[in-house]
């Protein structure tokens, strides 16, 4: 019985290919943000930039960091942490976006 069976349960190793695909996608998205930033979308520019950055982070989290293959608890953890950031952000801006 090999140790990896016991201790790494639930971890199916990815092939090399998927990592290259994700990398290409990340580069493409970077190209996209840089291009979009050159155009003038006004207030939408920052929204687009953050939206693209979120997609990039999602890819890194899910594939590079193997979050997709981890137990459910890990995913809940990430949601809890992000929730904490978002809710703090919203409450903080309750001070700044109103007078």
């Amino acid at each position, binding site marked *: 019985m090999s140790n990896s069976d016991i201790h790494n349960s639930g971890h199916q190793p990815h092939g090399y290919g998927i990592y290259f695909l994700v990398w290409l996608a990340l580069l493409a998205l970077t190209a996209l943000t840089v291009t979009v930033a050159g155009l003038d979308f006004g207030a939408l520019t920052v929204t687009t930039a953050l939206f693209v950055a979120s997609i990039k982070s999602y890819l890194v989290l899910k594939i590079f960091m193997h979050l997709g293959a981890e137990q459910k608890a890990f995913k809940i953890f990430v949601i809890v942490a992000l929730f*904490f950031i978002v809710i703090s952000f919203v*409450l903080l801006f309750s*001070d*700044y976006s109103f*007078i």
Partner: protein
Amino acid sequence: MSTLVSNISNNGHTNYLDYKGKHDGLKGWIFSTDHKRIGILYLIALLSFFAVGVSFGFLIRLELLTIGKTIVEPQTYNAFFTLHGVIMIFLFVIPGLPAVFGNFFLPIMIGAKDVAFPRINLLSWWLYIVGGIMVIISILLPGGPADTGWTFYIPYSVRTGTNVIFTGLAAFILGFSSILTGINFVTTIHRLRAPGMGWFKMPLFSWALYATAWIQVLATPIIGITLLLIVVERVLGVGLFDPALGGDPILYQHLFWIYSHPAVYIMIVPAMGVVSEIIPVFARRTIFGYKFIAFSSIAIALLGSLVWAHHMFSSGMSSTAQFVFSLLTFLVAIPSAIKVFNWTATLYKGSIQLDPPMLYALAFIFLFSIGGLTGVVQGALSVDIHLTDTSFIVAHFHYVMFGGTGFGIFAALHYWLPKMFGRMYNKKLAKVGFWFLFVGFNTLYFPLFVMGWLGMPRRYYDYLPEYSIYHQISTVGSWILILGLIFIYYNLIRSLISGQKINDKNIWGGETLEWQIESPPIHDNFHEIPKVTSGPYEYKMNDEELEKEVK
């Protein structure tokens, strides 16, 4: 080969105080990764820092005995309340229960041999010691100890000539230590529960520690970066908070309280856990509403993270923010009230034994209720404008932090110390110490409510004659309180040296796992990892009750 294995396991079955590991003597302690030894290391350090913090508190009260100068100059007085705050908060109440009793008992309570990361556990103790020593050294360095109050408010903390950098970095390191403890506990609870130890079979102290650990992990980094920015601000002048360079001091207050408000729940929630352990044992009843108490810990952690700006109602926030934070503040009272209700319901019809731990637990409920309810009073916007920066706040805070967490720590000491060292303290003396502490506490802090309501500002060196009587009563109270502490320290330390040895595993009749093992525990905690089949507070009911239950 097989003898080697059996040697190792036999050694694991010696009691942890006599255990011989890689190192001997002092090194066997300060380099030990045994969670029990680390708990004791924390205990010693913690009680030492507490004594220092109490001394500063004593000096503050002494200075306020008379109008004008009593013993020291105003600058020294400012340093006193800063040091009192920094030491008590970062070195005593925040690490208090998780680091000492959490480390010692969490693995035992869930049926594990140790925490998930023993070496990181030791690292966190070392960071704690380094941080603590830095705070003490800041007193001796040229420039003098910080005089900003423990809140380090901008812009004064950038302008003052005192050792703010040193104290700020110390608090940063202490925060890191706290984070590591939090990471350890979350992982331990997720990964190392014994077979059969489901989430809802865990003792409520573990639930409290779990909720606390999450706040430690998520909120502490915010104060870490904020304190670092003060250091950066002082060294480089980047202007992120300095209003002269465009920075916003109110934003500093926001960031400070995003951590420091949840931090008060880091302090109080474990104490609530201790009370939830003690009440059923000394009332001989199953805890009332187990799941409500467990989930209210989580609810406090969640809601407690959303109310920070109620510390800033008078600092010039938007009225929308004031309204939102006031509303959320009222909500956070609900889970605390649920706990108080459940504890009282557990006591109802119980056969109550007034041993020292129970006295502290009952005092906790009483004092915490006063502290909590006066907190709700300040959550109301209009009242808060009147009470901001008065000694009413100081009284409220001490009723929660000392009357709550402080009494919780003493409850835990009297409850678990015999298990930790296998020796019993003098119960009579413990009760005498308790009553001195209780009476002294109320004499010290209650007048602060009254004079705060009448307008006495906090942190002031001087006061008007009409407040004299309250200040005098309060200072006398501090003497009674310290007398109580001397009794308690003396009694507990004496018990370690010459206390009666206990052979009984279960001196109080508890049902949680720590009462099923030797006192003091063996190095491995358990001879074999237990299989858990029943909940933590299942007391055998007498026939009469059983009949009622059937009906």
